[in-house]
């Protein structure tokens, strides 16, 4: 139980990272690879947030009186993750737009067949 207590978030986060990497490395379909990137991003975000967590902490918002700064979880990773999520959506949207163009030009999304540029 204490193992879960300590590691479940990390396991979740790096589970996502590894699954994302696996998708990127093994799948040939471009959309699938982009899905992999999205899962990878989510995993990293989860990891960053769990780094900043403090046991029994509160959200870093002084929304009601009686909250003390010492109990709050670290706000920095949250700020970073906000940024990272937005970067993620930017990259994914761009990737999908490129995928659409690629499909139109090559007629396929199979990355193995899209290998005219090589050597």
């Amino acid at each position, binding site marked *: 139980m204490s193992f879960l207590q300590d590691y479940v978030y990390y396991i979740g986060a790096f589970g996502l990272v590894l699954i994302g990497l696996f998708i990127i490395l093994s799948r040939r379909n471009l959309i699938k690879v982009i899905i992999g990137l999205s899962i990878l991003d989510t995993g990293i975000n989860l990891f960053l947030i769990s780094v900043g967590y403090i046991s029994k902490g509160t959200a870093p918002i002084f929304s009601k009186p009686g909250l003390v700064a010492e109990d709050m979880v670290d706000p920095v990773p949250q700020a970073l993750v906000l940024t990272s999520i937005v970067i993620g959506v930017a990259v994914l949207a761009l990737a999908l*737009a490129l995928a659409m163009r690629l499909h139109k030009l090559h007629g396929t999304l199979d990355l193995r067949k899209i290998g005219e540029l090589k050597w």
Partner: protein
Amino acid sequence: MRSIAIIILLAIVAVGIGVALMAIPFGVAKTQVGDHYTESGIGDTGASNIVTSVVVGYRAFDTLGEITILFVAAMGLGAVLAGGRKLGQRRDVEPASLILRTGCRFLFPLLLLFGAYIFIHGHLTPGGGFQGGAVIASAFLLVYLSCPGRRVSKVWSQTTESLGALTFVVLGLVGLTVGGHYYLSSFMPHGVVNELFSAGIIPVIYVAIGLKVGSDLTGIIDGMMEETI
């Protein structure tokens, strides 16, 4: 064969990261910077949401970069898809059902309002420019889905985008000249904590960000929808 190789590689990486994680125990405060933020965040920036004070105060420069990235993505999406688009040729999709259209027409202003609420109250409650912008964009997404013919004016969304970003930049420059001579320094009065009009430049920036992100994301969706295949 390939899968096995990948699994081996990933296992090595996983072991490495696992070893590294031993040094980063979960749930233990390890930060020096974060403590300072929670303790003096209100005093420094006047925002009761410390995340906001970090995003728009301490690390506002990151946020400037972040909205730039979104801007790049929106711009780039347009540039990438422009190659395949023939002007004036749009797909004529039959409109969605009446129920959907009516529901959207009803939801649309509400969503806009909700988004605006989120980014205006970014310094007080969870949420902020990005979340609010996303909500606004989803409002437009709904419109696009229900009434495929309708489009946001390119000129307006582009202008909002640019002006929102420019507001951020110029506010920073003002801070460079008047308030403490630091770029992005909080030169406006902090006001009373937990009131709407407080926290110096943070709400102003968040409004600008909200509008900009909203129009950016709308632009992205617009670009994707408009692509004619």
